[in-house]
């Protein structure tokens, strides 16, 4: 297996959220259409990306921190795996369990909060768990290339890298689609292209949970 695979997965997951209309680009387009300004679409992408980043950062910080805390490490893997599986099952059973949000007119803080809630409700951060277990350093175990670096700095560096790669991929895909739909295709594309990937995503959550036991 190639060494870059965790990073490819991190980027692909970001791209997937960028593609999903319910995670942000559609809201950006709606805000642009409401004011008939392309700049509004671009403006909206920033808080959406930051809200998404914040949701993921919580999981990254939690896993990174617990990996450093030595004794908890043995429980961390099964706990994360079970959390993923339970969350996937929960979303199968209650697919429409979402934070309540009814507001079109939002400032950047509200838009960021909305994105944070949507990302959290979809388990965007949780999905990264198996990868984090792979890339984050663990106490007492010298890591591959950065053995000379203080372990806490190593953790921070890896965490920031995960956030950067994931968010950049999401922003790139989300921004491209938002502008293409706003400028060229129009929203009629929703009728044919908005396929229901809930089953795939929920299944992936469970699969990632099972995988976490072994990776």
């Amino acid at each position, binding site marked *: 297996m190639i060494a870059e695979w965790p990073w490819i997965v991190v980027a692909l997951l970001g791209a997937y959220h960028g593609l999903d209309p319910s995670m942000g680009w559609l809201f950006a387009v709606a805000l642009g259409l409401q004011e008939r300004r392309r700049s509004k679409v671009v403006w909206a992408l920033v808080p959406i990306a930051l809200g998404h980043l914040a949701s993921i950062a919580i999981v990254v910080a939690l896993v990174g921190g617990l990996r450093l805390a030595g004794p908890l490490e043995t429980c961390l893997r099964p706990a994360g795996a079970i959390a993923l599986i339970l969350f996937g099952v929960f979303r199968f059973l209650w697919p429409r369990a979402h934070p309540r949000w009814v507001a079109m007119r939002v400032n950047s803080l509200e838009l960021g909060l909305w994105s944070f809630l949507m990302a959290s409700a979809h388990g965007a951060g949780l999905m990264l768990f198996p990868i984090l277990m792979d890339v984050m350093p663990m106490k007492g175990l010298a890591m591959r290339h950065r053995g000379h670096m203080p372990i806490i700095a190593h953790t921070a560096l890896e965490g920031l890298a995960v956030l950067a790669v994931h968010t950049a991929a999401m922003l790139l895909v989300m921004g491209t689609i938002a502008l293409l739909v706003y400028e060229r295709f129009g*929203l*009629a594309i929703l009728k044919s292209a908005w396929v229901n990937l809930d089953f795939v995503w929920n299944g992936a959550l469970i699969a990632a949970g099972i995988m976490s036991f072994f990776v």
Partner: protein
Amino acid sequence: MALWKPDPTFYPSSRMATAAPPETLAYIVALNPTPSNGRHDALCVLDLDPKSSTYGRLVGQVEMPNVGDELHHFGWNACSAALCPYAPHPHVERRYLLVPGLRSSRIHVIDTKPDPRNPRIVRVIEAEEIASRAGYSRPHTIHCGPDAIYVSALGAPNGEGPGGIFLLDCETFDVLGRWEIDRGPQYFAYDFWWNLGHDVLVTSEWGTPNMFEKGLVPELLLGEKYGRAVHVWDLKRRTHVRKLDAGEGYQLVFELRPAHDPTKAYGFVNCVLSTKDLSGSIWVWHRANGDWTMKKIIDIPAEPASEDQLPPMLKGFKAVPPLPTDINLSLDDRFLYVSCWGTGDMKQYDLSDPFNPKLTGSVRLGGIVSHAPHPKSGPLNGAMQMVEVSRDGRRIYVSNSLYSAIDEQFYPEGIKGWVAKLDANPSGGLALDPNFLVQFEHLRPHQIRLEGGDCSSDSFCYP
């Protein structure tokens, strides 16, 4: 059941929905005006496919399980609002009709699949459930919203006020509870809708159930005790923002028809009666300088009539009021249809400029004095009342009853139910379809809903 692609009847914008295929079925609620005979209200299915051998005929019927529900308005479990960007659930189906009994306070959940011509009742939400979970009764208007089904209720379980709005889940149909957090001065309820692009909900006013369930009370009407205001609410915070009072003499502010384009900050509402001269009027609510306000744009005068032509309640006035009791706005926000249930007119106004109406068409059918005939039937009683417009704006369907207790006040001879169709010219103009008339035996038709959506069923989040 979740769909693989968005329900094909959902459209991101009203503009796109005007290109929807023509309807091939209509659902019509019909009430039995004399519950003492033990017969049940029903949901009827009308064939509207011109290629069908049963075109223009009733092809199906679901009877309600109880007697005396007084079916009135109804709506879909899901519509284009499911595509709204902040709470999307595009893969639910437009499938269930929620049919409230205005008198019984039951809500019937009726499944239109697998056979749209043979819908089936799959659940009945009892009055007690609505009362205990939301504190309301007499459910009226149903709108599928961005996050839930919204239902207006005209009063409290004891028949007094306040009336308000409660929410239902669009798949389980559980009563989620009362919508308002702060109702301010609002007490009366009737219709509601919203300007989604502006995060604003609007409600209108009739009276408490005790004020109308035995018919309109003349003393209350002349004493101006019924509602006459529109309330503007913050949709996000669920709080009252502004009371827009039509002012002295105006009574019964009913149907709210906001512009379908969510970027527009206006809508139309009908005021049934002015106690000064029995005229009816149309108003526009709109946002100006950051605040909401309301302005009268159309006056429809009463017509002189001799006493012997009038029901007891109107004899003293020697005039027949127009009684604009229902209105409907085409999906392109251009034409407003106004049913004048007193005189019998259906008026079509061009409201491209919402403050500058142009009368572009008028057809008369029935009416208290005129009893204007249909080519297929001769003179008709009742008059065009509930009006529904096809998504392409070309076909207008009308039914002739209002509310059982009020029917008897204005048409004491008793209303014989019918549904007629008008054809609208896309550039303005209205004509009666001489070949289309559906006559009912003992039931009275009220609201009409078109398969796949119509001009008062869907809300849109995109222009």
